[in-house]
């Protein structure tokens, strides 16, 4: 199998895993074929910064031998995956000039977990500079491109993760999410992506953006694939101060149970005024689909978008400034101008504003936990704007500081609740759109169950980009 068939490249991870388990697919041939596809297509998609060809093949040979000897580690065994380049594994640039020569001494905890589960790591995926900002043609690293339209932004900052999965250049990928960086590229690329509960997946070995808001999670073609990946990644890590010492349940048991009698709360006030009408129409179709599947739909009150931004931004950027302060003082010229300005803006936030934002955050969380007494899930459009063309120059501070950008994922970074983006259709221009579904802390299984129920009735993942 020297060239992977298009059909195989776009199979869900779960289906490929089933074939590997039954020894109808060879991990070595699968990895060779995926590497060949990357070689053929990634020059246009730019999803990968680094491809670990030799190591991936060596790991695939080891997986194949192990499976042949009767040791099967589970659904990731022998499956080619990839990770965002702020996750430590070999060369780890974080999309920056500053870390262009950095080579990680040890893999991130999440990478070790994937490898323990038998996964083959194909390489490192494109991101925005230190997972913030907007990629442009002027960026130090070339920006990933959206497989559905190569002139369009694939979203970010897990941009390579979204692009690689959508283009059939990996069966799943690891992303990170501080304000939507898993869910925005999942939306833009027509795939599923979950930001788990805060502390569910260890962040050890991942460049921080905001200690308070950072999450690690999987991105894959389907909801079930994300569940399989999270199963391997989740768990307590005493070396991550934010890690949650909570038992990890099965994420696939009960995933087929449907959503009859579940109550879904829709916080219309968050997005109704700011959301692009085309996205809103597709979201409303998805809500009706959920109702048709047996869920009860209720309106719940919400923050407005400018309030969400005002609470989220000071925490995120001030945390980031604290992390980058020494480099900002000593070698500011090694950052892009836009990133440098973001970090400098973080130094302008008063301590009282930061602490008040933290208080607001806890009050929002408390309020939404109360709402979860009357609903089981929350559902919103993932975002309310379509991705634009990849720009020649950055948008600058005005965009970043705007308080009416229709970007809704941050609500669940503030609360720490698990939230997933699920594809729910396409615009007239042929670009994918998704909705976001969220639940109580550590209720990822419920998020997967609801997302899977929708996806089974509307399998948008079966459409593939015209590469």
């Amino acid at each position, binding site marked *: 199998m020297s060239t992977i068939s298009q059909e195989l490249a776009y199979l869900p991870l779960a289906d490929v895993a089933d074939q590997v388990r039954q020894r109808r697919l060879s991990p070595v041939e699968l990895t060779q074929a995926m590497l060949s596809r990357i070689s053929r297509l990634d020059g246009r998609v730019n999803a990968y910064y680094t491809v670990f060809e030799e190591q991936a093949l060596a790991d695939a040979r080891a997986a194949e031998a192990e499976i042949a000897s009767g040791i099967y580690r589970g659904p990731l065994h022998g499956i080619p995956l990839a990770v965002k380049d702020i996750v430590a594994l070999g060369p780890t640039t974080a999309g920056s000039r500053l870390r262009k020569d950095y080579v990680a001494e040890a893999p991130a905890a999440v990478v070790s977990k994937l490898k323990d589960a038998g996964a083959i790591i194909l390489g490192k995926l494109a991101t925005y500079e230190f997972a913030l900002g907007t990629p442009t043609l002027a960026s130090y690293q070339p920006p990933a491109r959206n497989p559905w339209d190569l002139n369009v932004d694939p979203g970010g900052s897990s941009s390579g993760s979204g692009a690689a999965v959508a283009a059939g250049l990996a069966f799943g990928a690891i992303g990170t999410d501080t304000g939507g960086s898993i869910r925005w590229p999942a939306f833009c690329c027509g795939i599923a992506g979950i930001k788990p509960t805060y502390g569910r997946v260890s962040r050890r070995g991942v460049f921080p953006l905001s200690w308070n808001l950072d999450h690690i999670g999987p991105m894959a073609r389907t909801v079930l694939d994300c569940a399989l990946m999270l199963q391997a990644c989740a768990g307590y890590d005493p070396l991550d101060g934010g890690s949650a010492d909570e038992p990890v349940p099965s994420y696939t048991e009960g995933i087929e149970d449907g959503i009859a009698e579940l109550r879904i709360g829709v916080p219309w006030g968050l997005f109704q005024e700011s959301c692009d009408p085309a996205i809103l129409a597709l979201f409303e179709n998805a809500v009706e689909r959920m109702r048709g599947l047996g869920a009860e739909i209720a309106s719940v009150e919400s*923050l407005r978008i*400018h*309030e969400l*931004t*005002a*609470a989220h*931004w*000071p925490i995120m950027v001030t945390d980031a*400034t604290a992390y980058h*302060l020494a480099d*900002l*003082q000593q070698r*500011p010229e090694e950052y892009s*101008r836009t990133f*440098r*300005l973001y970090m*400098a*803006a973080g*130094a*302008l*936030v*008063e301590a*009282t*504003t930061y602490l*008040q*934002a*933290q*208080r*607001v955050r*806890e*009050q929002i*969380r*408390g309020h939404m*936990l*109360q709402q*979860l007494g009357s609903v089981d899930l929350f559902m919103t459009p993932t975002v309310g704007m379509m991705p634009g063309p990849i720009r020649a120059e950055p948008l*600058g*501070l*005005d965009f970043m*500081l705007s*308080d009416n950008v229709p970007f809704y994922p941050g609500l669940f970074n503030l609360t720490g609740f698990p939230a997933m983006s699920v594809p729910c259709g396409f615009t007239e221009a042929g670009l994918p759109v998704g909705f976001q579904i969220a639940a*109580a*802390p*550590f209720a990822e299984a419920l998020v997967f169950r609801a997302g899977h129920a929708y996806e089974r009735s509307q399998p948008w993942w079966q459409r593939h980009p015209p590469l």
Partner: protein
Amino acid sequence: VTGGPTRYGKGESTVDSRQIVEAKLAEAGIRLSAEDVAELVRVYPKLQMWRATVQGLLDQESEPAVTFGAARRGAR
């Protein structure tokens, strides 16, 4: 480039944004070009507006640390 006056809060004070931005950057040990400083001065009022928004959202009667722990336990 002059920053001009910035009104923040609810009419509490009028100050020069440029002086504040330069002082805060100096305090943090961050040295930037005049062009970068000018850009920060231009957007500084936005940061002040967010402070007012966050302040307006707060329920001043609450104690967040206690609320957080109790709510979290109750959620499980």
